[in-house]
Structure formats: C-alpha cells, structure tokens
C-alpha cells in the first residue's frame, strides 16, 4: 500500500523495515533498565490476569471493560454527527434573524475547543448529579461521560463540517437553485453529499481520537478499559495491564483507520473508473 516499484520495491521496503525495527529493539534490550521495564510492562502472566480479571482479588477484567469504551464511543458518535452538523449549519447561515444563535454557536465552538475534555468530564460527572434535578441528576456516570464527549467533540466536528461545506464551490449552489431546487433540497442532495465526501478522512480521524478519549470517562470511577487497567496496576503493582488496554485500543482504532483508507480509495477508483482502460 505504501510501497512503489514492484517486487524489487517490496524487497527493499521489507529489508529497511526489519532493519529499523531491529535498531529499536536493540536500543530497548541494551538499556540498563531493560529487564525491570520489561517485567513491569510486558509480563505475560499479569497481562493475561488483567485481561480476564478477578473480582475476588479486587480488580476488573480489562477485556470486558473495553466493551464500555466501545458502547460509549458508539453512543457519542451517533449523537455527535447530527449535533455537529446543526452547529455547522447555524454558523454557516446568513439570515439576519439567526444572528443571536450564530453568536451562541460560535461561542460554544470556541469554548469547548479550548477547555480540556477531562475538565468537561469532571464538571458534568460531578456537577450535574449535585444539582439534584429529577431524572437528569440520576443517570449512571457513563452517561455524563458520553455527554461530555458529545459536547466537546461536536465543537471539533462542526468545524470539520464547516470546512466541508466551504469546500463545495458556490457555483454548485447556483446550479442547484437555478433548477428550481429549494435551499433545503439543494443542501441535502447537492451540497451536503459533496461536503461529506470531502470530509470523511478528517471526520474519521476525529472518531479515532474519540475512541481513545472514552478512557477519560474513567476519572468518574466508571470501569472502562483504562480505569480497569489502573485498578489492576495499583492492586498488583505491575503495569502490564496498561499494555493490555493499549493493545485493545489499537485493535479498535487500526481497523477504522484502514477502513478510512479503503473508503477514500474506493471513491477515487469509482470516479476514475475506465479512464486508465
């Protein structure tokens, strides 16, 4: 995928990859503290035990906890996509009557892109229950975590949408409107379709970051993968549980990254189909 030059190219790239890897491994192995670090982070027995967990010994399964990360990620993503679009459309609107909400949307985006996500998680997770509101203050901690993710990431994603909307040339609007399409229909079938196509890579990039950031919800005491690993580490005094969490996050994010590449490639090929033939 990243190589050019046919069979010869493959041989060269493989050899250089092996060489570079060997250098890294060598540096690690030759370091004075290599044995200690290897034991603390890559100890097979601890990795397995933290993966399966043992409540009787006071620690949770990292492997089971990752499911909570996945669920939080999916819930957040489903909410972020439409919410961020609404924010972007408000910011793109030009009608004078919408000026106040345009200002609110701008302040919102500036604020939540500037405040660290961790602070938003803490503020919602500890603040909202303290309000003693009916229903709203009596949700599981994971819900406040997801809310914090949605609020913060929508600010970022709305900017991605905005870039996408701006990437569609104004003449496309003119062409659509000149055919009698209403503003709404033109937006839906002509502008948004092209905008979304243009922003799939940065959008999925944000979602890869979102998958990892679900671990921040752990500060509320929610047993997600990172929190489960942390509990294991402080119970057994071995950090291999964090390595397990890292591997699990990688297993989640790498397919998404490859999927992104495939989508882009498929789109490119479909549009150029037959040109080379």
């Amino acid at each position: 995928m990243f190589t050019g030059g046919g069979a010869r190219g493959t041989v060269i790239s493989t050899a250089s990859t092996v060489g570079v890897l060997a250098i890294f491994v060598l540096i690690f192995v030759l370091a004075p503290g290599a044995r200690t670090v290897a034991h603390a982070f890559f100890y097979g027995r601890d990795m397995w035990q933290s993966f399966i967990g043992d409540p009787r010994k006071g620690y949770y399964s990292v492997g089971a906890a990752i499911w909570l990360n996945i669920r939080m990620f999916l819930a957040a993503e489903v909410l972020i996509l439409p919410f961020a679009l609404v924010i972007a459309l408000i910011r793109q609107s030009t009608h004078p009557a919408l000026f106040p909400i345009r200002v609110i949307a701008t302040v919102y985006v500036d604020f939540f892109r500037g405040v660290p996500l961790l602070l938003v998680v803490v503020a919602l997770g500890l603040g909202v229950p303290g309000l003693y509101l009916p229903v709203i203050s009596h949700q599981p901690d994971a819900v406040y975590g997801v809310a914090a993710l949605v609020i913060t990431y929508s600010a970022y994603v709305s900017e991605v949408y905005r870039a996408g909307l701006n990437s569609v040339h104004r003449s496309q609007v003119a062409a659509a409107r000149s055919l009698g399409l209403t503003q709404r229909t033109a937006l839906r079938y002509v502008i948004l379709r092209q905008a979304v196509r243009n922003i799939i890579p940065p959008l999925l990039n944000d979602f890869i970051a979102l998958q990892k950031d679900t671990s921040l919800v752990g500060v509320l005491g929610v047993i997600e993968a990172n929190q489960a690993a942390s509990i294991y580490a402080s119970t057994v005094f071995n950090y291999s549980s964090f390595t397990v969490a890292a591997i699990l996050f990688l297993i989640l994010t790498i397919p998404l990254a490859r999927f992104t590449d495939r989508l882009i490639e498929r789109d490119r090929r479909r549009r150029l189909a037959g040109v080379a033939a």
Partner: protein
Amino acid sequence: MNGGAIRIEELRKSFGPTVVLQGINLAVDSHEVVCLIGASGSGKSTLLRCVNLLEPIDSGKITLLGQEITAQNIDQNLVRRQIGIVFQSFNLFPHMTVLRNVTLAPTKVLKLPRAEAEAQALALLDRFGLADKRDDYPDRLSGGQQQRVAIVRALAMQPQMMLLDEVTSALDPELVAEVLDVIGELASAGMTMVIATHEMGFARDIAHRVCFLSEGRIIEDAPPAELFTDPKDERTRRFLRRIVEAKRL
C-alpha cells in the same frame, strides 16, 4: 417585439461600489433568440443571473410571461422552474452520474416518479447523442459533453425559455461546434433563448436580434444583419473592429 416572454425595465444592479447594470431595458418574445454581445465585464452574465433571480436586483422590474418576478412575495423556485440556465463552467454535480444529474430536479422539484423522469431524461440524452454516457460521472466526460449534459439537465425541467451564459467560453476550440449545434437545434425547435456569447459568427447565424452591451447598458439592439454590417453607435463599431482584427468574425 412585445416582450411576451421576458420584459426587463430599467434594471439596475451594483456589487458594492461597482455598478454593473445601469438601466437595462429589454423585451424578448416567445420563440425569439436574442444574443447578448459585449466585452467581458459589460454585464451580460449579471443580466442573465438577474433574470433567473440568482442575483437580487437593486431596482427595476422583470416580467416573465406576464408575471412580475421581481415583486416582493414571488416564489423564486417556481420562477426558476420556468427558466433553464446554463453556465460557462457547466456546474454539473460531480458526485452524480449523468442520468442522476438530469433526473434530480424533475424527481425532487416536479415530483415525477423516478422511472418516468429517467425515461424522459434518456429520451433527451438520446436526442443530443449522450445516451451512452448515462452512467458516467461528469469528470469522465469531455468539456463539450459536459456542457451538453448541462443543457439537457436544464431542458429536463421543461423550461419556457433558456438563458445561456457564455456556454462555449470554457471549451477547447474543437469542442465548441458540438455545443453550438445543440443550441441551433433548440432554436429551430422554437425555444425562447437569451444567449450571452463571444461567438460572433454563431450569433449572426442564430439570433433574431443581437444586443451590444457596454458598461451596463444596451447600446444597440438590432437584427444581426444590421448590427454586424451597419452598426449605428461608435462603441459598437469599435468593439466589432477589435473582434474582426482578432479574426473572430
């Protein structure tokens, strides 16, 4: 010349401090072909965009088929349905096939069933020699093919008239003829058309009337035989002389 199709009265339009149209008066009959000529920046494109309500006007009045379309409470979408406009830069929808480009507006605006819209679109594509391109995406087509698809897309809405905005200006010279042929066919089929163009030979052949624009005004408005051979105004004469010197007429 009673302006049964389009009647424009004292139309004025500025972009900020730049005055683009300063009092345009023009009447177009049904089945009439009017060509607008003049240097770039003389206001031809803006005039067409105003008629299609793509640009809000500053003052004046535009009447379309007896209805004042510049009135306050007019449904712009309803007006635009009756006018097909084709742009210099084609502006096809790049994410849709040729067929979908043509059927989008009929299905979404006229609410035609998809099958009916497609049958109608295919008939039009076939008429202009584009039937085999139905499933291609625009960026696979030549400029001439794209512009013909753009014309078909506008025709699919069954407009009462067509506005053509320098539709051959962005084309390679060898592709101009196929687009002009299409327009010629529309003219002989009786389509009302207002055509902004730099193709003087074409204007001379196809137009019933030619209007010469300069600095946002119609300086001269006459049948092509008269305007091209015996222009009355000095500015028209100067413009045509430059065109002849450039061997474009």
